[in-house]
């Protein structure tokens, strides 16, 4: 056995910053919005989370790949990220129950990545300069050509992506004899959300993003769930329309992440693109109703406006992000509709907020 030096790759940021590193995953070129995730576990769950569609992920944790990949720990059928940037990468893993190495997994799923990068420098850069696009390539290292390719990557603002990652046709998830029927508006749902619902005696019918409300209603659900997903919520008129009708239906509804933003937009609260978003497994949230705190898993680059909620008579803030006081959860007054900006299903991340699924089921049982 000899020492493996690997092949070279380059990462270029929109503002011209260039990093050289080693090629990992599939050899090739790929662009997207670069954003960092500070989680120390759960890389496979992150890569397969449809909310990351179109994004290049920087894992800030020092090692990636150590425990391989496992088919049962995916948040969707295959990775959704556009690229991967890591510090130290292991194509060797030790977990006995893993199904493959991360390297084989990434190659199989066409994910382009780069390793041996000063990821901390990138984080500080994004922290200061804000979200931007980037490109990774193990084929092209001419900065001029890379810049051309990078210019073709679309900006995340005004981008509609849900319809690209959601299910193509409706399907049933869970046991049809379960007590509660939940109609799920799939904007790019994570599997563990469905798992959390079915574990609480729900059966889900998952509808593609652009499904009409009538179609959802036809199934006669006990409640509606509006999922997470990628892209700019402000341009998702179709989903906003659907959710307006869901709210009018007076049935319990629960939204997560993008779903939360859509519920806000449907209630007249605008959203905005954050400076560089929240992505990690350690975000502190305070539940204003109980006064208790929870450590949450987060992944969002857009957020709902706090000022506008304070001016609204229909919407109330239920959860706050303690790091920057952004809105983390809302409920609609006089309605059984609530939503959170973070990920109570976690995967990856702490399970502190799973009580929200209980709350949703509780609302359905009260009807």
């Amino acid at each position, binding site marked *: 056995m000899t020492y493996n030096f690997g092949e070279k790759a380059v990462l270029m940021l929109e503002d011209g910053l260039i990093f050289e590193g080693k090629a990992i995953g599939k050899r090739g070129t790929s662009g997207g919005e670069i954003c960092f995730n500070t989680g120390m576990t759960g890389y496979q769950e992150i890569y397969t989370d449809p909310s990351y569609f179109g994004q290049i992920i920087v894992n800030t944790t020092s090692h990636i790949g150590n425990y391989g990949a496992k088919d049962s720990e995916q948040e969707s059928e295959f990775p959704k990220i556009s690229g991967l940037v890591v510090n130290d990468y*292991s194509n060797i893993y030790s977990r006995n129950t893993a199904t493959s190495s991360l390297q084989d997994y990434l190659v199989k799923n066409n994910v382009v990545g780069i390793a041996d990068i*000063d990821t901390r420098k990138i984080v500080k850069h994004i922290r200061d300069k804000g979200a931007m696009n980037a490109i990774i390539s193990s084929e092209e290292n001419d900065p001029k050509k890379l810049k051309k390719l990078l210019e073709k990557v679309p900006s995340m603002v005004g981008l509609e992506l849900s319809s690209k990652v959601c299910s193509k046709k409706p399907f049933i998830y869970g046991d049809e004899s379960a007590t509660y029927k939940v109609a799920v508006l799939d904007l790019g749902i994570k599997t563990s959300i469905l798992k959390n619902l079915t574990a609480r005696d729900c059966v889900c019918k998952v509808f593609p993003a652009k499904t009409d409300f009538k179609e959802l209603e036809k199934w006669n659900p006990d409640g509606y769930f509006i999922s997470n997903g990628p892209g700019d919520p402000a341009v998702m008129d179709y989903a906003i329309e659907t959710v307006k009708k869901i709210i009018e239906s007076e049935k319990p509804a629960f939204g997560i992440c993008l779903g939360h933003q859509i519920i806000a937009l449907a209630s007249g609260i605008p959203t905005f693109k954050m400076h560089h978003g929240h992505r990690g497994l350690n975000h502190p949230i305070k539940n204003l109703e109980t006064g208790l705190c929870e450590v949450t898993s987060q992944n969002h680059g857009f957020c709902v406006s706090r000022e506008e909620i304070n001016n609204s008579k229909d919407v109330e803030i239920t959860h706050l992000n303690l790091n920057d006081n952004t809105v983390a959860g809302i409920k609609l007054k006089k309605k059984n509709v609530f939503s959170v900006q973070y990920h109570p299903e976690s995967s990856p991340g702490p399970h502190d907020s799973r009580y929200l699924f209980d709350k949703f089921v509780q609302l359905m049982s009260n009807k």
Partner: protein
Amino acid sequence: MPRDNSIRSVLIIGSGPIVIGQACEFDYSGSQASRSLREEGIEVTLINSNPATIMTDNVTADNIYLKPLTKRSIIEILEKHNIDAVLPTMGGQTALNLAIDCDNAGIWEKYGVRLIGVDIDAIDTTENREKFRLKMGELGVNVCEGKTANSFLEGKEIAQEIGFPLVIRPSYTLGGSGGGFVHSYEQFEKALTNGLHSSPIHEVLIEQSILGWKEYELELLRDGSGNIIIICSIENFDPMGVHTGDSITVAPAMTLPDTVYQEMRNLAIKMMNGIGKFAGGCNVQFAVNPDDDTLIGIEINPRVSRSSALASKATGYPIAKIAAKLAIGYNLDELQNQITKSTPAFFEPAIDYVIVKIPRWNFDKFQGADLSLGLQMKSVGEAMGIGRNFQEALQKACQSLEIKRNGLGADAKELTDREEILHSLEHPSWDRLFHIYDAFKLGISFSTIQKLTKIDKWFLQQIEELILLEKEIEKHSLDNLPRELMLEAKQKGYADRQIAHLIKCLESQVFKKRKEMGINRVYKLVDTCAAEFKAETPYYYSTFAEENESESSDNKKIIVLGAGPNRIGQGIEFDYCCVHGVLAARECGYETIMINCNPETVSTDPDISDKLYFEPVFWEHIYEIILHEKPEGVIVQLGGQTALKLAEKLDRYGIKIIGTDFKSLDLAEDRGHFSTLLKENEIPYPEFGTITSADEALEMSKKIGFPLLVRPSYVLGGQSMKIVINEVELENHVVNILRDIPGNRVLLDHFLDGAIEAEADAICDGEEVYIIGIMQHIEPAGIHSGDSNAVLPPFNLGDLVIQQIEAYTKKIALALKTVGLINIQFAIKDDKVYIIEANPRASRTVPFICKAYDEPYVNYATKVMLGKNKIKDFKFSPKKHGYAIKEPVFSFNKFPNVNKELGPEMKSTGESIYFIDDLLDDYFLKLYSERNLYLSR
């Protein structure tokens, strides 16, 4: 819940003298807690019998009691002060036990004192194996299956039920004797009989063996409202079977997928909530079955611990400081993240580097000790390395150990005996890590190494990769080593010395070459948040990456070198001195920079210095920090032998040593020159000689005459020091020393049999000498000063003797051109005072004298070193009342079979202080009457 304003005065109980398993991490937690409470305007009263602690300093607390940790002392304090609450979770098991004793005796109730940060029932549940098992069953947490047996038949039945492999643990035996792992029925009967016999109550615990499972720890914090956060996950490199205090540990966990980690997190929270509702810190240990990821709860400790100190240093999150605030009612979301100062304390640190902790053992001090690692902790200290990857952190931790290695391997000290290596892999001792490296180097198969060590494959592959890299490097020479390869080696933590060894050149050539290549160390922040937020606390480590985050200011700066990992002879006393050195330099207007690698210490609390570099006290790292920071000078005389040893090289590189210069430091060590100096000053010393071979030794012995004290030069704590009475013993010992420390010179001193020993500590500004204290040993000469009971001031030395000691101390300090501290050891025979040795540096006794006389001598000495003050500037006013006895404390109970005989080689791990009013004190009289019995201790 906001702060409970009814708590205005708090008592903190310390952990007492340092013993194995309870070291200076509790000085770190105690002083943090104290500062944290005082920030809130709370009056803090502290009790601890360990004088060498920062926590018992008046910079830390309002009222300090250097008293034995007994109920009597507690009552005395409660009589004198109006204490509202007691915080017993900062002083280890010792403090908890005392708090429970007082509780049982109704003392807290009587004086209206609330116990905060703790729940007595919770402690009971965690201490009692059976209660723990029941509670965990109730909570649905899997634990090791097991039962206690009082008879042979009962034992056999239990074994049948549990199946093999299993563990037999006899009840109430010391050092785990009589217990062990049993793999088959054939071994079982004998082992069971053995176990039952070794238990005084004829009882054994028979438990399912999870030897070889992966071992983890989580550090939790919970506030009074029930909010819980996990500060850090720690993974043991050594799997189940080695005590966690003796295991190499890594943070964050390296091989845990999110699913298993979250299950562990959930269980830890459930366990903490299950045992009680106290507000504070908690440590939970787990084992994970590598085959199917199933989890078992091992134990839970409802207090801050060695691991929480490590977790604090590993993440930057000050657990003890926050735990103290939680104990007085605050909620986590009401407190600030101490590193970012902009986000709340309620969050879980995200780290973007790796830390590796390696324990430091002192088996050389315990001849005849069982060297194997197992259920009982045996290490005396630890070093932590921080790197951007595991390999870098591992190399840095190895470089921090000071075991005469340059890191992990690449230093010509590899073991090549296959059988010896294989045995070591299966039977872990202090050097297994090095033997794993050796095994790969020798070409032993991966599967064999894995099978014997049961260490996770990922860790082993990381070491295997180092060997592959080395093979690649070895193909080159200095002239043709590619930049890529040099960078790769540096990023994996290789020291220039190691690379020099691989390509057969000098360390300085490698340094020069990589500078030419533009391969430079950069410094990164430990910031709790992976750079997500801006950090305010200047806590750095080095690595090889693109961006440097440590900006060097234009201020005038001083670097203080720390003492590295604790070991016998060099412990907490030196950390005490370093901390005061830093504080004094700051008072003088300097920007202070601390370099140390011991995670247990106060000096590595980023609150202490203006800048903390958590780096090995190893030439390459220090030199690069100096180049980066350009300080006015470096203080070496406070960090024990570790720091002092670097003086020569600092001097050679033209770096200013603050205080006594290198020439004088060297002169004191060089016996020949030193005795010339003594002769010139007409100061007596025992006949001596310096030799470099056994033949010379025998020759010399004829001249000097037996008994002889034999020792290598440049050692601390009397390492390899021995008294010999004939030629055979002399030859044996000289051969041993020269084998262990080749090329060293050996000193032979005529040993003054029956002499009395004394020592003096002094501050000298080059012109004037102030003696801060003279201590007389109770036992006669022959026992290392660190191991003898000593009294301050002397109890029966005549004026004539005292005057000789004073005069000689002053003469020597001046003759050595001392600027700063000096310690001189004397032997007194027939009223004549002889010099044994002089050490122009802070000694082990300095903190003791500071405490006994309640004077800031290290502060004064530092100001003298910096040239800020002269002796005449200080108003010395020692509080001299009665006598202070320094009592050594030993950890022999961890080594049941070792020879407990004391001699010139130091064996004690800690010390306590005991004040007496006069010499008729019973305690003193007992020590005095038994002074010759030390051989049977």
